[in-house]
């Protein structure tokens, strides 16, 4: 198929960016979206032009590197997948596809479609862990039984890949879904309970410091999340936060 691509090009963090039009032909429905961009880049390299920079790595939907706002939606029109899992058969011959970086004040553009998501790392560094030593001996793994339901819920929250689609989907560019997924993972486990109060306060404080917006409960984050992280996590984080604040 033949497509028109409107792609955000920006030389570096300080340069002014703009949309640039490209036409591309011979695209096969079996190609992934990123393979389509590979084809475009190969053409650009052969013509001596600058290829389009975008983040990607595992190309199987788990590393969280790929991003892209495709026709206004993070990770494109399909649900519960990342951009690397989106296939070109979703589009048809003659379509125009608009490709932009994830937009948020806390995710500044590095180049073209690449944004800086280190704000997420800093939220995790603030207290996204349990303070146990990794080198010494600890208690046997089966010493503390954990309810299967809690273990499963904790796992579901922990499957967040940190891609940032929740922030890009949110009109306030809020990082509540991301932050609450980590808070929930630990809040649901006895190992995490010990530091639960400190954790939620520190992580929320860092989240605010990074310039993410507030949550106004539109639920767009949940709908666009490629891993289906539930809004319940935000509710749980709010409870945890309140509990910790009044102590």
């Amino acid at each position: 198929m033949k497509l028109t691509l409107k792609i955000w090009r920006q030389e570096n963090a300080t340069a002014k960016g703009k949309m640039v039009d490209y036409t591309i032909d011979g695209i096969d429905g079996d190609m992934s979206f990123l393979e389509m961009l590979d084809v475009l880049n190969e053409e650009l390299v052969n013509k001596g032009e600058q290829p389009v920079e975008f983040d990607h790595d595992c190309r199987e939907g788990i590393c969280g590197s790929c991003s892209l706002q495709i026709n206004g939606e993070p990770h494109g029109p399909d649900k519960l997948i990342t951009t690397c899992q989106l296939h070109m058969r979703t589009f048809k011959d003659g379509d125009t596809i608009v490709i932009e970086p994830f937009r948020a004040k806390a995710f500044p553009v590095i180049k073209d479609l690449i944004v800086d998501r280190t704000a997420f790392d800093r939220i995790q560094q603030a207290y996204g862990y349990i303070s146990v030593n990794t080198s010494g001996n600890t208690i046997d793994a089966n010493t503390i039984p954990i309810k299967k339901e809690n273990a499963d819920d904790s796992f579901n929250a922990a499957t967040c890949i940190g891609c940032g689609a929740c922030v890009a989907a949110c009109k306030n560019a809020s990082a509540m879904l991301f932050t609450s997924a980590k808070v929930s993972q630990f809040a649901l486990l006895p190992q995490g309970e010990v530091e639960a109060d400190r954790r939620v306060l520190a992580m929320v404080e860092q989240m605010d410091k990074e310039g993410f917006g507030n949550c106004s409960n539109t639920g767009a984050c949940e709908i666009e999340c490629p891993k289906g992280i539930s809004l319940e996590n935000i509710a749980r984080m709010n409870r945890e936060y309140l509990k910790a604040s009044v102590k």
Partner: protein
Amino acid sequence: MSILDSKIPKGPLEDKWSNYKNNINLVNPANKRNIDIIVIGTGLAGGSAAATLAELGYNVKTFCYQDSPRRAHSIAAQGGINAAKNYQGDGDSNFRLFYDTVKGGDYRSREGNVYRLAEVSGNIIDQCVAQGVPFAREYGGMLDNRSFGGVLVSRTFYAKGQTGQQLLLGAYSAMNRQINRGKIQAFNRHEMMDVVLVGGKARGIIARDMVTGAIERHSAHAVVLASGGYGNVFFLSTNAMGSNVMAAWRAHRRGAYFANPCYTQIHPTCIPVSGDHQSKLTLMSESLRNDGRIWVPKKLEDAEAIRTGKKKPTDLSEDERDYYLERRYPAFGNLVPRDVASRAAKERCDAGFGVNKTGEAVYLDFASAIERYGKEKAFTSGHKNPSKEEIYKLGKDVVESKYGNLFQMYEKIVDQNPYKTPMMIYPAVHYTMGGLWVDYNLQTTIPGCYATGEANFSDHGANRLGASALMQGLADGYFVLPYTIGDYLAQDIRTGKIPTDTSEFDSAEKEVTDKINKLMNAGGQHSVDSYHKKLGKIMWNKCGMSRNAVELKEAIHEIAELREDFWKNVKVPGTADTKNAELEKAGRVADFLELGELFAKDALHREESCGGHFREEYQTPDGEALRDDENFKYAAAWEYTGKPSEAILHKEELIFENIELKTRSYK
């Protein structure tokens, strides 16, 4: 040719590690504050090592090419992690895990290292649970286990199909705790370009900031390479797009021996290549072989008809199908080990029985599993005389509950419904058992330079068992390296900070900059990817699932030619002082073009078949691998001389005192 010293401690197998720990040098906590360590790579091996070393008090710098340590490719591991916990009471023990691993590796791994791995495996699970890794649990609240290929016990711990992700996020959170304490400095979007030797010891690295293009000097008292494997030398593999051999290869060029490069694991169940545009391959979990039956048409004309779309697989009756694994290996059937299953698929496709348009695919069919489960379900629910449709519906539900997410992933990629028509699969490069040669301390032949996880060679021999990669990465990082590195660093307590304004750093940086300039200013004819794809084709066709002397010699020649052409004619657009993906790829492909040649040389020299290395000349009359323990019971460690084809061979004789060498048979 010298004989390498593995430094395995003396004494009985089960006491080696304890005796070793009792007798090594330690660094006192106050002195650790004056010692710097660089860790390259933040996957399971690097992330866990960085966190533990920082916690012990060392100053750690980590480097990764991704934008966050959390994205290292360990994250993509699906199945699970082995540990000899014996929670199931099914007879597991450290010795049994050790035995299974050595046997699975076709007797080409080192006994002392593997036993230590088994010994610390239980502690990994304790550690990860304490960190908050949400492993699967039973209703009683205890940890659940499942079974994996090649073993007779249930020792695999898992978190659905995302075990690697959960373990990596555990290591990442341990890193974050140390970053927050100021004990780890994380350099993300940074690539190690070279290791710097001062007085023969590894004392730092040259790195490139991938955003600004700045070339940086970082010094340390030791350098740990946890940079993963080199499967991307084949271009197409299940590795991440950015996975590369640069760190390991640059260390090799500086004197670290590279061991057994030809030992590569080709995983039998991946989604086949669909066309030239393909950039990577996706794994379908090994667990599918529990219920799927693998087949191709019996008659060549049927295969041809299917390839051209004139027939569908479901048109073929039972007696028109060749369930070749069941035919060749009646005892193990579809559950033979990975190397055996992969070779058998290739044999059939080479003979013309492949079933997709490229001729390189076989069927993995769930129809009989759906029928079997459907009948069982109908019987247990008291459903008498169920219709065919009812049986299908009941059976489909069972298969969906077991493998639903994999079936969905398949449908997304291939656009076919695997409940209705058999899946198409083909082997793909997945893991590399070879890597930097290390001794028992995980130290390479460069003093102060260590290699952990997939980057080293020591634990999996010629074939790795499922769920053992995660175990090795975390064992090395959490429990082994933090001890062994202390023994070396004890001599550095009075050294003080290593300066970077020395001639050694000057010349290393100059070499890096020259190399970048050379790439930027090459002839400018062809893209980096076009070279990478050509290299991949040579590797896959001549150094892939089966190899022979004639083609390996051709490969050595062709790769050398391709490399020469690359340096003359590669085209890297843009500039080096900014984010430049083409330049990043060019540096990596340059190294693959050298590694590939050494790979072929190693495969040519090993005149036997073992594990993932199958030489057509060395097989039994019925096509099975023929090992030669008399002449090849050693690890081949290659020394760089400037030209990969002229690398010098050093042998480490493998000593088996606790295991009797046998021929693996799955008939």
